[in-house]
């Protein structure tokens, strides 16, 4: 009997990382709020250098955020990797069974690769898509005159953007995991199910044969089997191109 799946995660370490990230992000948001609050009102009519200066503030913020969000994503990556490694161990332990049913390890490896590729760079990308001059709300904030109100508006905006990015990321990972398991189940279990059905069908086919009708029935079975063999040969021939 196979051992129970074991996920070797270190929850304390991850909690620690997340706490530290949370604190730094709060600081980063407060800094961008202060910086933006001291800029003059900026709109479409502003000079190129004013727009450049503002973009510089945003880029510094994005860069700082990226460093921190990548720590979150690395934690998630480590976790998800441990799940997929466990899945691979599970299949390694069942190598004979995998071979017996012709389950494609290559496809599983591809699905794992796809899942892991979805983990990094997501939060940062979400934040970037919101901290942009095409965002109406941000445009209203940068149009405000310098001061406390502007700082508060920017803080609230940056804070919400970050929270929304985290929410979207979590949802994204949840969906990816769900699709992944669905595909694994489909790829692995449906193959075994098909083998089961084939055995059942073959067994039923032979059931009607007795000593009296053996010759006649056998010929029919041979004809059917032969049809299937021909189909297989043609499929292989076609695949060769």
């Amino acid at each position, binding site marked *: 009997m196979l051992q129970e799946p074991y996920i070797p995660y270190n929850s304390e370490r991850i909690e620690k990382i997340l706490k530290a990230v949370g604190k730094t992000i709060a600081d980063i948001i407060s800094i961008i709020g202060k910086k933006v609050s001291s800029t003059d009102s900026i709109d479409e009519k502003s000079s190129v250098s004013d727009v450049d200066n503002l973009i510089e503030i945003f880029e510094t913020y994005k860069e700082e955020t990226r460093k921190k969000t990548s720590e979150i994503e690395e934690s998630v990556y480590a976790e998800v990797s441990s799940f997929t490694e466990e899945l691979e161990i599970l299949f390694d332990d069942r190598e004979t069974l995998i071979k017996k049913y012709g389950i494609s390890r290559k496809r599983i490896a591809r699905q794992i690769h796809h899942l892991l590729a979805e983990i990094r760079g997501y939060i940062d990308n979400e934040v970037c898509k919101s901290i942009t*001059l095409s965002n109406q709300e941000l445009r209203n904030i940068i149009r405000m005159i310098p001061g406390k109100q502007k700082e508060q508006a920017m803080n609230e905006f940056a804070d919400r953007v970050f929270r929304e990015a985290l929410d979207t990321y979590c949802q994204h990972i949840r969906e990816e995991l769900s699709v992944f398991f669905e595909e694994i189940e489909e790829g692995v279990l449906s193959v075994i199910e098909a083998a089961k059905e084939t055995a059942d069908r073959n067994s039923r086919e032979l059931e009607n044969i007795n000593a009296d009708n053996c010759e006649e029935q056998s010929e029919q079975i041979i004809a059917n089997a032969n049809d299937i063999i021909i189909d297989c040969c043609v499929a292989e021939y076609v695949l060769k191109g």
Partner: protein
Amino acid sequence: MENFSFKDEALQKKYEQRVAELKALADEPVTDSDHLWDETVRRYAVAMRRTKKVLSSKGIQDYITMGMMKNIDTFLNRCANAEFHIALVGAIKAGKSTLINALLGYEYASTEVTPETASLTKFKKADKNHVKISFYTNEEWQELWDSANEAKATVFLEEYKTLKADAEKSKWLSSSPKNIVCDDKEKLVNEIKRWTSSKSSVHYFVKEVEVGLKDFELPEGVVLVDTPGLDDIVEYRSNITRDYIDRANAVLVCVKSDALTGQEMHTIYSVFSNVRYHPEKVFIIATQLDTLNRPEENWKLQEKEWLKHLKGRGAYGSEKLAEANTIPVSAYLYTLLKEYDTYAEDDQNDKKWDLESILSKLRIKDIHEKYDWLCDFTNIEKLKRTIKTDIADHHKEKLREDIESTYKICKEEIQDCMRKIRAEQEDIIQTSRGGIEEIQKKKKEFTQKYKEASDDKKELEGLISRLQAITQKRAGELEQAIKSLGR
């Protein structure tokens, strides 16, 4: 294939018929325009399509899993949908429409002063000239309407009222896409205008317009997309452009080639924010080169200024990339040169006067002598080459690699499956020839196999679902911890 013979004449006849049918099926020519974008891919797609036909035929289809059929369909879809989307973005009067027309070789897009594009307009190759219009659903329209009211989009709301668009709302919302085949280019232009012009009441409800062109001068698979712009006051519509930029294979940002303005930098930086990890897919197109006083000299100076901003980290983040991806063009001059024969003799034609004026700025007296130089100067052919090599060919290569590896996996899976089925069937034939005792023995074996497969399935199913449960539990905990960061 082994040659069988049967005592029973009917069976023998059936067998021979089957072999002939399958041979015809396998050798049947596949005429499919979907995969013409690449010869290798076409070969794979044809092979896979024929294989699918064989595997779907009566008899063997019982042995093929749904998963395998799904994988084949996914593979065939990937082969067919080889489109390379190039989004065009630009502020009002940045020369976007003139550029589209120069690239397509005909005035399909309106160059009138009022902004014409309120929905995505996709230009692509087709067998017949046609316009396909998709409309918003009631739900989508409600979101758009809320977005317009929230933003207090006065112009949008007032024009909506003036054009009495509300009276037409129920006619278009949630209706099926409309496909209009056009016999000539003029009719096509009128249809495009009818559905996209901001002066027509129906345009409010149009979500997307696809323009199929018989004469398409860009490489196979390229889809040129005119976007409503990132600065649309109705956020719902600017979000459509934003999402599109994110997904497009390349983005051409049209900016007038004189001194950069704050508004243009707004547009440029907004595009780069949306392609965070792929600045290389953005091309800054410095348009209307011919409007500069001394086009060549002025642009040289202007380019230096532009690069100072474009090499910054809010844009390309690299001087080399900024230089490579900034392309100055004169689309109008290109069109004037291409149409020269049609108005050269007509002294009253505006185009002739426009051309004269540009030639004088370029200090050119004889157009015939400098025709090739002028065409080069417009850079439109260079831009077309960039679209072909840097965009279409590059993406085709990546897609081809992906398709090749998927084909190999699919092929191996099918071949393994075929070998397994064949071995089983040969075993059955062997058994059937062995007499009743052999058959009884085999029947027991099948029953045993059935039981084994049931047990194996149960075991793996249990393990996978336990692993999934643990994963989900842990993912849930992690999600809570991550979400608490922002609270």
